[in-house]
């Protein structure tokens, strides 16, 4: 485990340079009178999974949506692969906390929707979608409608839709919060496999410390509103071990404990 303090973090971030997928520079966000984010400087390394963790209402969703280009920052800028973000782009894909599946469309059409919007032909986009439906473990459900699926399966559809557009950066806002505990663990394991396989940059928001430590290469802890970077932790867990071994690993447990000690002061 590597613990980087806030000051050192921004220094380390700027130095990292070459393989940075997303750069956040001096981002502030005001919702009218409410200051949600203050002076966020952050780099997201390419091909890694970075988690945003913090107390409720600290601005995690806000930061993720600013990176996605769904809402504008009040000041500061975001660069993805060196390009300044002005809105949503093909190199980023968002996975929504509430799934955001079209209830009137089948799993197939939902997964292929990003490609449909790009104007890709039906056969081509369906064969791509079929591949990702299989990858998230939903083969055989192509012609089902969302209301026929469980919460976990719906979120897999959301994930497949994000994969299908072949973006470099995937933004996930609490993707498992509506999924029950057992499915959640299975889903986390599958996600790690996909991270390994897809070689994409993942930015992940979660409430769960265990989930953050288990899944992440790097954990960014935000302070209470207005959100600022409180701490950056790199768990450095050996992922070649089995999932159950990881969950019993002393380094894993220590990291969870350390983050909890840091976050405890925000809970009252």
């Amino acid at each position, binding site marked *: 485990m590597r613990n980087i303090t806030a000051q050192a973090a921004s220094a380390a971030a700027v130095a990292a340079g070459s393989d940075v997928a997303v750069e956040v520079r001096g981002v502030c966000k005001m919702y009218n009178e409410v200051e949600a984010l203050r002076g966020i400087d952050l780099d997201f390394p390419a091909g890694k999974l970075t988690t945003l963790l913090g107390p409720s209402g600290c601005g995690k969703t806000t930061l993720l949506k600013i990176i996605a280009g769904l809402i504008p920052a009040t000041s500061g800028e975001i660069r993805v692969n060196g390009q300044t973000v002005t809105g949503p782009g093909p190199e980023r894909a968002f996975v*929504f906390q*509430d*799934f*955001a599946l079209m209830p*009137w469309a089948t799993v197939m059409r939902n997964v292929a929707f990003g490609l449909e919007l790009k104007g890709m032909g039906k056969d081509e986009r369906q064969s791509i979608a079929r591949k990702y439906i299989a990858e998230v473990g939903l083969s055989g459900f192509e012609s089902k409608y969302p209301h026929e*699926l469980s919460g976990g399966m719906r979120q897999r559809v959301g994930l497949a839709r994000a994969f299908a557009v072949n973006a470099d950066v995937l933004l996930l806002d609490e993707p498992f919060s509506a999924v029950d505990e057992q499915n959640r663990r299975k889903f986390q394991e599958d996600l790690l496999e996909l991270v390994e396989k897809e070689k994409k940059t993942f930015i992940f928001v979660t409430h769960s410390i265990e989930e953050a430590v288990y899944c992440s290469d790097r954990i960014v802890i935000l302070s209470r509103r207005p959100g600022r970077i409180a701490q950056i932790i790199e768990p450095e867990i050996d992922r070649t071990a089995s999932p159950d071994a990881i969950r019993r690993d002393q380094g894993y447990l220590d990291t969870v404990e350390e983050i909890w000690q840091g976050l405890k002061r925000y809970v009252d």
Partner: protein
Amino acid sequence: MSFPVQANGSPRAVPNSEASFFWRKLSEHRTALWRLASIGLFFLVWEIAGRIPISFAFPTFLETLRAFVTMTLDGSFVAAYAETLQPLVIGIAISAVIGIGLGIVMGLSRFAEWLVAPVFIVLQAAPMAALIPLITFVYGIGLVSKTLAVIMLALPVIVLNGYKAVRNANPSLVAMCYSFQGNLWQRITKIIIPDASPVIFAGLRLGLAAGFIGVILAELLITPTGIGDLITYHRSVANYAEMYAAVVSIILVSTLTLAALEAFELRVLRPEKRKS
């Protein structure tokens, strides 16, 4: 958000024995049974009321049924509806296009909402039927007046429903479309309209029902043609069974049209509702 809830179905239906299996079977057909029973009861009360009789001008159910069959077979219904449906179809088509279009524009733009919504809110509250005779002053007694009567009654409810539906389109789906770089046109046609379609179609059904009232009123108040003429004529010669048969035919035609509209909606826009 809104949609995960509907998947779980009724929380009460937990069958666990033979008896509950029977009840479940029954309850599957229960709505249909109740509907039939209520229609049957209605006809029975009608028949009894006609036999008392509550008024010399009130025929029994069986007399009306006989008149209905005769008029269907001798082609007088066909001829009447050929005329009545003309202004209705034109009026509803115009109202649907203008209404849904305006509703969508108002739902998307605060300025259009501010400009147009109050007009239709007033129009919907106004007793439009009372204005129908006024149209005759301006447009005479032809097809134009009758079409206008249909539009006056049908348009407000279609506009207002379309506007409410679009305004309340699921923001999370809209954000999803935006995040996948959907343009404005795609956002409207692929997300907002399908999402709003249940409410838009509810407006269309209400508009159609109002349009029926409009065209019948026009035929009774402006010029006796079509089914309105049939009613007026049979009343004037005291063929009350025939007159009631004509009234019943209107209810029948409008119910069937509404059912057809609903079937069209499920088929084209919301296929997922057909399955369950």
